[in-house]
């Protein structure tokens, strides 16, 4: 089962939950953790392991072959992203705006815009005793996360072994990066906090997941701060709150040092047990259905 861990608002505890859940689950089941928050991949801060594969990821972008070009300007008309411009006697390419759709290149009547590889990011695969960890990391200055997120997911699909549980630490927000990261998942766990920001951004995330037709569950982090409004919203929307995690300075301090929480704090481990139990229930339901 592929489980994306997402949130509308940043900093609600996605990564903390992803790394703890994955490591804890890996003690009893074949588990993979993928960090798809490629703009700021943080899971690796908490999860070590031996680096077994490192792969540079390239994106295909057009390059201009002046000798073949007749300056007809069709490429510039085709490009919807202003990434190919005809400026005087030149074709200027802005790779950071390119979506790698190939239209300019393949429709150029003179074949004057061959696609070339442009470094985009890196995928790393780490292995520790029990856990496989895959990280996508976007190069600084690259604008578009989705292509690397897709490549990272593809990498997990082509591994030789199969995993019972895959946890995908997803980017914050509600736009293209999170849609790319969650669209292939079987379940989306939304992590939020009981504050007005947490509630507002959860509503956006829930609407997004509805539109994607995803099954969702909610984890409320830092319970004790804020107010009850979030819980009323979840009840009204029939959103299943799987677990709550108390606000705790001890958790914040362990987190700050890049340490896992569950080995030290029993309440946190209890919450993980509840979540894993709910996941198993879903798995057996899906087995019955299929």
């Amino acid at each position, binding site marked *: 089962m592929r489980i994306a861990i997402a949130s509308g608002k940043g900093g609600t505890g996605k990564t903390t939950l992803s790394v703890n859940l994955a490591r804890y689950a890996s003690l009893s089941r074949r588990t993979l953790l993928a960090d798809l928050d490629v703009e700021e991949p943080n899971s690796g801060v908490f999860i070590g392991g031996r680096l077994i594969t490192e792969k540079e990821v390239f994106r295909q972008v057009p390059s201009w072959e002046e000798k073949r070009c007749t300056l007809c300007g069709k490429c510039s008309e085709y490009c919807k992203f202003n990434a190919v411009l005809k400026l005087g006697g030149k074709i200027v390419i802005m790779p950071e705006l390119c979506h790698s759709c190939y239209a300019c290149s393949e429709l150029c009547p003179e074949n004057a815009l061959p696609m070339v590889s442009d470094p985009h990011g890196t995928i790393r695969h780490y292995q520790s005793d029990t856990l496989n960890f895959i990280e996508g990391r976007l190069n*600084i200055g690259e604008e578009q996360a989705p292509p690397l997120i897709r490549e990272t997911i593809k990498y997990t699909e082509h591994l030789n072994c199969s995993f019972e549980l895959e946890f995908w630490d997803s980017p914050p*927000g*509600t*736009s293209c990066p999170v849609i790319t990261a969650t669209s292939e998942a079987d379940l989306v766990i939304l992590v939020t906090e009981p504050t007005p920001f947490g509630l*507002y951004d959860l509503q956006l995330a829930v609407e997004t997941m509805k539109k994607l037709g995803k099954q969702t569950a909610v984890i409320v982090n830092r319970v004790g701060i804020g107010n009850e409004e979030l819980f009323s919203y979840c009840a009204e929307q029939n959103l299943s709150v799987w677990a709550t995690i108390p606000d705790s300075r001890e958790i914040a301090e362990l987190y700050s040092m890049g340490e896992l929480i569950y080995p030290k704090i029993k309440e946190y481990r209890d919450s993980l047990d509840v979540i894993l139990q709910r996941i198993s229930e879903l798995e057996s339901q899906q087995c019955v259905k299929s």
Partner: protein
Amino acid sequence: MREIVIISGKGGTGKTSVAAALAFITSDNTVMGDCDVDAADLHLILQPDILQREDFFSGVKAEIDREICIGCGKCDEVCRFDALVVEGSTYRVEPLRCEGCGYCSYVCPVEAIRLKEQNIGECYISRTRAGSYLAHSRLGIGADNSGKLVTRVKRDARLLAERENKEFIIIDGSPGIGCPVIASLSGADFALIVTEPTRSGIHDLKRVLELSQNFGIPTGCLINKNDINLEIAEEIEIFLHENGIRYSGVIPYDIDFQQALSRGQSIIEYNPERWKPFFSELWNKISEREEKL
């Protein structure tokens, strides 16, 4: 007119709380802009009166007229985004996958594909309780092109600041280092990174600092909740110093931030005795630093 952009790399470090506090310090000398368009939260604190509202169109998505489609599949062959789905004997576009490149429409032999302009959200100009103007937006559910919406909000803020003769624009940016962040930074006079003394905070700070420095934008840094881990806070200060960041400040961990937020207030309104002098001083340092640059 000077534009200050607040960013963080990592989410949830307190960008919006800092932006809202500065709105109350600078009050009617400022236009605020909420460029965290994915999760625009500044209005929850500033509770603005909306003066102007406008639909925002950006980009296109393909649509297939299934009466005309002959099911040849040329569109599917060229689409790099896996956005075409066979249904019966014709094709359909899955809008959440379509990136609007238009390639399918160029190769369709029967012209069954139309590119439809997308309404991706709404833009607002508002007046806030703090006395400042606010340029903000609501991004539609599942919409892309958030970078374009950021550019639009920034343009609104600049026009407003020019028209109303305001000295400062303060932009609440988004987490990450991708297109909305790059769009927020473009043309800014100063970037203020809000970070936290955690391993993740420092990791993300390094990446976002490299980005702002690549753009050649003078950058300062605030370490929020610095006493959560004084050791890492010190490590961050050393790192900043080594990287030529001459301005940095700290904000202590304080329950006031959560309390204020829960009431939909800025920290300045919640506990003015404590926080007004604190943020006034901080603002003086930022604006002074910024003048020297």
